């Protein structure tokens, strides 16, 4: 059974970086950040490509974000997506998840979508909300934190992860949306020829007009969203930091472990 799959991807600043709040307090300083595909989305993309390879069909990689996100879409093409679409939503932060989800849902509607995949969360804002919102807006069933997908008799059997290592298994009719968990598969590396080819591939751009609205604001939800302010997290300051050179740090740590009775003999 060939399936039309849309996989929603997000480009995020590398989470291992240090971040500074911009002077106006409404975003972080973004000038010197490097960006990458969101961690969980790598698994969503891989799952999409595997489902296509196994069942036939087509994978469209979709994102809403600034021009820089084209780099991520090209990676997705190189890893097996058949088409790349960027919704030209230029807000670099995209903190209003309800708005982003409404924009993505409007874009998904223009694409064949038996199955929509997202990552379980984005590592920059960790809402875990985009997938469920899109499903609700499109009126299709969904499952979250999915670790296994099996296409079965015109529908899906999916394993979802709960806290503490428990799983719940559901049967879903199609069309459906799944949010894919870290570790659901082993994402592939793109082969060099595919990277070369993807570098020249066209990327479709969707403007508000293409989705039949005068502006992105026309798709906003039933509320007014405002960023009040960003700040460094309140310093808990309870960690005693062992500073100095590595051998000093190691020596002091061992001494402390000894004093607290964790070292035998």
């Amino acid at each position, binding site marked *: 059974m060939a399936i039309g799959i849309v996989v929603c991807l997000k480009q995020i600043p590398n989470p*291992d970086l*240090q971040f500074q*709040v911009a002077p106006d307090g409404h975003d*972080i300083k973004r000038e010197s950040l490097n960006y990458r595909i969101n961690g969980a989305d790598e698994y969503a993309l891989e799952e999409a490509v595997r489902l296509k390879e196994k069942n036939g069909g087509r994978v469209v990689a979709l994102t809403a974000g600034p021009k820089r996100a084209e780099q991520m879409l090209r990676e997705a093409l190189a890893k097996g997506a058949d088409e790349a679409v960027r919704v030209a939503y230029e807000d670099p932060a995209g*903190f209003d*998840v*309800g708005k982003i*989800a409404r924009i993505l849902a409007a874009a998904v509607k223009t694409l064949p979508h038996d199955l929509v995949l997202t990552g379980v969360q984005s590592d*920059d*804002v960790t809402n*875990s*909300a985009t997938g*469920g*919102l*899109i499903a*609700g807006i499109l009126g299709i069933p*969904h*499952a*979250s*934190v999915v670790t296994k997908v099996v296409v079965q008799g015109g529908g899906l*059997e999916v394993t*979802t*992860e*709960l806290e*503490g*290592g*428990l799983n*719940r*298994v*559901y*049967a879903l009719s199609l069309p459906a949306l799944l949010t894919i*968990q*870290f570790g659901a598969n082993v994402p592939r590396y793109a082969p060099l020829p595919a990277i070369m080819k993807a570098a020249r591939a066209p990327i479709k751009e969707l403007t508000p007009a293409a989705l039949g609205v005068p502006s992105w604001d026309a798709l906003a*939800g*039933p*509320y*007014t*969203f*405002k*960023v*009040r*302010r*960003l*700040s460094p*997290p*309140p310093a808990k300051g309870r*960690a*005693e*930091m*062992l500073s100095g050179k*590595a051998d000093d*740090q*190691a*020596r002091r*740590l*061992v001494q402390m*472990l000894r004093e*607290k009775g*964790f*070292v035998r003999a």
Partner: protein
Amino acid sequence: MGRDVLVVAEHLEGTLAPSTIELIAKGRDLAAQSGGSPKAVVLGHGVSTVAESIAGYGLEVLHVDDPAFEAYTADGYGQVLQRLIETDAPRLVLLVHSAQGYDLAPALAARANLPLATNCTDLRLEGQALVVTRRLFNEKVQAEFEFASDRPCVATVRPGSAKPAEPSAGGKVVPVAAAIDPSTVRARFLRLERPSVEDIDIAAADVVVSAGRGIQKKENLALVEEFAKRLGGVVGASRPLTDLEWLPKTRQVGQSGKTVRPKLYIACGISGAMQHVAGMKDSGLIIAINTDPSAPIFEVAHVGIVGNVLEILPLILKALPS
């Protein structure tokens, strides 16, 4: 828009999720701010003991008992909650930011066309505005977001961000009829699966030494294993390592793995994402070693070393009796 705060209870196999008790405390605070009452809603089948136990925290519990709620489904829960929100018109609907909570909350908010804030560490009401505190960028930035609306807001609250409610008098259970059409449940529950345990139980150890991405290569696990051995402890891991299958799933510390409270917890090259911290923050003594001074693990650690574990661990091993 009303003033009440509706707390959606989470339970599994007849047991109330402890995070729901935190949520009740938060719901009570917020209801005081809006001038309304906190209420809880329990959806299930044959779980009146769960409903009764929530009433023990002194609030009204709407109890929907129907075979359709034998297991959680987003469609079933969503339908009933949407109807309840329409009839009861609460100010706020609160859920735990758990796998079930963030499965349900967005779908509910979308189907009922309501504002949604998720993974909040704090919330307050200011007139028509809900102001939520969030953590962004790998816990390294805090943010306040405002949602102003004349519609009820749906919000999920991060586990561990409020103290559990204390029991109090005055609660009661009110049965509410469900009337779910099973054919509208499109994601059908099939079964619950448990991991087969064929490993040591890291939750039973006094000393846990955990490895994270900072160890870089599987071969470097040997350093962590040796460290744990010298302290008479066991090796744990953060999620990325068990995803890579460098260690079995049974060693994973965190929300989707084990919750541990050892006397000593040492985090080696673990940045401290929420999902990990949730599983170890109550340990007796927490020591963290990480190259990034802004890593959130240092917020929960009692003792911190900014440095490369691959450099520090061999020096520690040299100084420890074997």
